[in-house]
């Protein structure tokens, strides 16, 4: 036990004395967020409109008309769900078509708008009112105009950063695992440091354990720094639990650390590690929903990317951090990561070579 502890302490010293590497690990992802914060992907003029149709067939004309408006992205749903989405910032406006709707009876429709996004709400109101007016122009006298009753709801103004930050956080956990471990172990191997260790009565597992523990702590630091800086400087809408984020983050780290060890096992030099590490990490970086939503990807790509470990990690982290999901609610991601960690650890044990 004492040896395990001493090895872990030594491993910490060694890791944190690589000042540049530590800064790089913690600051590079933040720098990425900073760059992307200048890009306003969410201000492209699209309005997310939730429609709650409680009037059945009598309202179809209105919904069809709304769907024809290009600036609107119409989603139909139940009242409760749509209002919840409005709170979460997933909808800008929710229009409720009540069962008692009667054209020509000086009736009104209720539109709940997200007051956290005033400009979008205002624009949305105008668009909605115009569509309603156009639709009812020839049917109703001006006096019996169908009014839009607006109610402001304090929802969240989710921005691109809210999407991006958990993704980049997951990605940096992946990079730390794959690149960090693979490079440092290949270097230990190449410089004969491991050989020198194996002539002592060291238990190799203790040594690996110390390395893994060190990096799991680094993951906790990454999570804390990223979320902390996100809330302080980037207006991140963090509603999750740190403990749960740590758990998911570390589970993901185990997967990627094992991949790193496997790569270190089959490589003799840094030159061999680099391309392998890139081949594995690049597709995940681009297709696992780190920088943009996977819903933009074609279906046949989904079939594969749904099962990437980074997809599970990024989705899990995002649900917990931004939607306040609990571990139980992200069970699918947890399960995926568990399966991956078993698979990758088995591969690592098979491939890892000390020499």
């Amino acid at each position: 036990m004492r040896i395990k502890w001493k090895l872990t302490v030594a491993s910490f010293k060694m890791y944190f004395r690589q000042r540049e590497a530590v800064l790089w690990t913690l600051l590079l992802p933040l720098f990425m967020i900073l760059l992307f914060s200048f890009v306003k992907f969410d201000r492209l003029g699209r309005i997310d409109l939730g429609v709650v149709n409680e009037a059945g067939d009598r309202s179809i004309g209105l919904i069809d008309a709304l769907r024809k408006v290009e600036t609107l992205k119409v989603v139909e749903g139940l009242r409760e769900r749509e209002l919840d989405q409005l709170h979460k910032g997933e909808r800008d406006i929710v229009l409720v078509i009540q069962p008692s709707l009667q054209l020509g009876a000086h009736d009104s429709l209720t539109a709940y708008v997200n007051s956290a996004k005033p400009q979008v709400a205002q624009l949305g109101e105008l668009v909605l009112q115009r569509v309603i007016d156009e639709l009812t122009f020839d049917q109703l006298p001006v006096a019996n105009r169908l009014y839009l009753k607006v109610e402001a709801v304090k929802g969240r103004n989710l921005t691109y950063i809210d999407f991006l930050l958990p993704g980049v956080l997951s990605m940096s956990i992946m990079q730390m695992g794959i690149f960090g471990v693979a490079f440092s172990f290949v270097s230990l191997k190449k410089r004969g440091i491991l050989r020198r260790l194996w002539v002592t009565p060291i238990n190799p597992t203790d040594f690996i354990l110390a390395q893994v523990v060190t990096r799991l702590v680094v993951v906790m630091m990454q999570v804390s720094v990223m979320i902390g800086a996100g809330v302080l400087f980037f207006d991140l809408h963090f509603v999750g639990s740190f403990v749960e984020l740590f758990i998911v983050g570390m589970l993901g780290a185990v997967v990627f650390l094992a991949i790193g060890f496997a790569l270190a096992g089959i490589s003799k030099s840094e030159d061999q590690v680099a391309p392998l590490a890139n081949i594995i990490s690049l597709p995940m970086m681009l297709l696992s929903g780190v920088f943009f939503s996977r819903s933009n990807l074609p279906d046949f790509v989904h079939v594969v990317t749904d099962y990437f470990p980074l997809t599970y990690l990024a989705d899990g982290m995002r649900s917990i951090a931004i939607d306040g999901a609990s571990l139980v609610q992200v069970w699918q991601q947890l399960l995926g990561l568990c399966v991956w960690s078993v698979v990758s650890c088995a591969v690592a044990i098979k491939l890892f070579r000390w020499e």
Partner: protein
Amino acid sequence: MAETILEVRNLMKKYGDLVAVGGVCFSVERQEIFGILGPNGAGKTTTLEVIETLRSIDAGDVFLNGIDMRKKPQEVKRLIGVQLQSSSFFDKLNLVELLTLFGELYGRRVDPDVLLEEVELLEKRKAKVGELSGGQRQRFSIAAALVNDPVVMFLDEPTTGLDPQARRHLWGVIKRMRSEGKTIVLTTHYMEEAEELCDRVAIMDEGKIVALAPPQELINKLLSGGFKKQRVERLANLEDVFLSLTGHSLRED
């Protein structure tokens, strides 16, 4: 009668079809400095690496202090101190931290300063290995090999790449370790080093020992066979010139 501390019998090591060590026999006595000489690729390092528990034994037996290495390699590890050829140490820990850590690996709490004193590196105690000169590095790896107070020390080409002063200095360290009761097995390319240091040498070629005796005995045997050097023996050589011009003191700090 001297006590045998290391016994190697018919040791074989193959890499595929290549026979690196082909049935080597020798024994080393307590407090002896035993040299293994030979050209590159003769199997010196492989022989050492097998005895150091780094490589498995294909055939033959190795007994260290009476312990069968094939059966109890872990016990052997505790009794030996090893300096590997061209191996390094963690570069982010200083000398004191490294020695402390290596001591812990043997379950020992060592006093790093005593070990550093032993190899005359006390003033470098807070330095990193990367900041040491070649000679200092070799001395440090001897200090690291001493953490478990080993019975036998294995030094693989300890003076390769060192300047004449640093080499002589290291010879002093090795002789002192022997006088303190250690048994030392070393490999070298330098014949004058073997002559100066070793009680007995084994000369290896192509994985086999071709001669094994004290250096002077080997020389006498050669001379008695009628051997004569082409050139007349000079009373000094270029190394003597170099040392008389540059002094015997170390120049590494």
